[in-house]
């Protein structure tokens, strides 16, 4: 893997979105991953619909939570994703109004990546942003910087929030993953990226 990487400055990441008062992080993590894949494979960055997943993904529970792995199979079964503009976000579940004719993107399959961080970094740099789930410990009060909780807090039993890995690197020898969250633009670290006068805020883990 290259020493650092950031898809935000390579056009593969849409602006930060806001899930509102709804446990729909899983939908934003998945659309972010598919947005990146569509950009890298088709050359177009489209902002895709989370509301479609809230309404039409019957395996998951909309604002009560969901799993990315279910969401990928729902996207396959539905026949694709509409854009954010065509099927805009409401922040609560409604009747499914997906229309296959309006789907702008589709996926063939989904895979599970290694949990080895070196392999993840290599995959991210070559293949695009990755949907991951983390422990949101401390994120309620996170303002900026590299967050490194004590190891016991990184237990898989405490996973409770899905986000998008958009890059990695290190600052003064502290390695970090850059994550794109879905809590709106008034949360997290605002960064200025090459090419983006003021980049979308993202947290740094």
């Amino acid at each position, binding site marked *: 893997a290259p020493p650092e990487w950031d898809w935000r400055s390579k056009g593969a990441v849409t602006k930060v979105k806001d899930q509102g008062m*709804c*446990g729909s992080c899983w939908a934003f993590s998945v659309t972010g991953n598919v947005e990146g894949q569509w950009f890298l494979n088709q050359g177009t960055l489209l902002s895709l619909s989370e509301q479609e997943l809230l309404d039409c993904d019957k395996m998951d529970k909309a604002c009560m939570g969901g*799993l990315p792995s279910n969401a990928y199979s729902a996207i396959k079964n539905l026949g694709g994703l509409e854009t954010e503009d065509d099927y805009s976000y409401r922040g609560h579940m409604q009747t499914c109004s997906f229309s296959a004719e309006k789907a702008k993107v589709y996926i063939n399959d989904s895979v599970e990546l*290694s949990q080895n961080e070196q392999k993840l970094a290599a995959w991210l740099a070559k293949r695009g942003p990755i949907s991951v789930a983390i422990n949101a410990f401390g994120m309620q009060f996170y303002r900026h910087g590299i967050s490194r909780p004590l190891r016991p807090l990184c237990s898989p039993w405490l996973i409770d929030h899905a986000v998008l890995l958009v890059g990695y690197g290190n600052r003064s020898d502290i390695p970090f993953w850059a994550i794109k969250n879905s809590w709106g633009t008034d949360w997290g670290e605002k960064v200025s990226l090459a090419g983006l006068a003021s980049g979308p805020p993202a947290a*740094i883990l």
Partner: protein
Amino acid sequence: VAAPAQPQAASFQAWGPPSPELLAPARFALDMFNRGRAAGTRAVLGLVRGRVRRAGQGSLYSLEATLEEPPCKDTTVCRLPASKKTLLCSFEVLDELGKHVLLRKDCDPVDTKVPDSRNETFSSVLSLLNEDPLPQDLPVKMASIFKNFVITYNRTYESKEEARWRLSVFVNNMVRAQKIQALDRGTAQYGVTKFSDLTEEEFRTIYLNPLLREEPGNKMKPVKSVGDF
């Protein structure tokens, strides 16, 4: 008698030589402070006060100590000769099964404590929380920070009771944020965010996704390698 389920919060002991209970963590903190210092340049422990909070098999010591730094005449150690100096330090030491971990060290020459410029109001107020007795103007300071929060994030509350409740949640969250700060080993800054008036339960219920922990979900094929399409 079984230990109580909730962590015990002992009150701050008065300044004085370290009490037997505080001696071990105080000495550990001093050793950490002196690590790497040559003989003759090490600081000496002065007065100590502090409190201990117990939870499970661990104890968290919040200490304040004065350290006496010896005069420094050796130009290879300090560029300018320095007379004897007293430092006021605050330490947080975690003791788990006899193993000490220094969670926080904060030392300044006496009377020149400089607040954290980036998060000034937050840390200076929190140090107020640690004072004993609480200063009279603490409510005023808290209220002004809370007011800034309400204006910044355009909060509205249905009633005065609701506002008062939210203020108490806000204050409690500031203490929680400081604890998280103390536990963090990176460069992250924790403090006031748009979620600062939500209880942990509210935040977890509204914004987080417990399903991620509970259900395995649809099984996906593992990717073989980076090159695997």
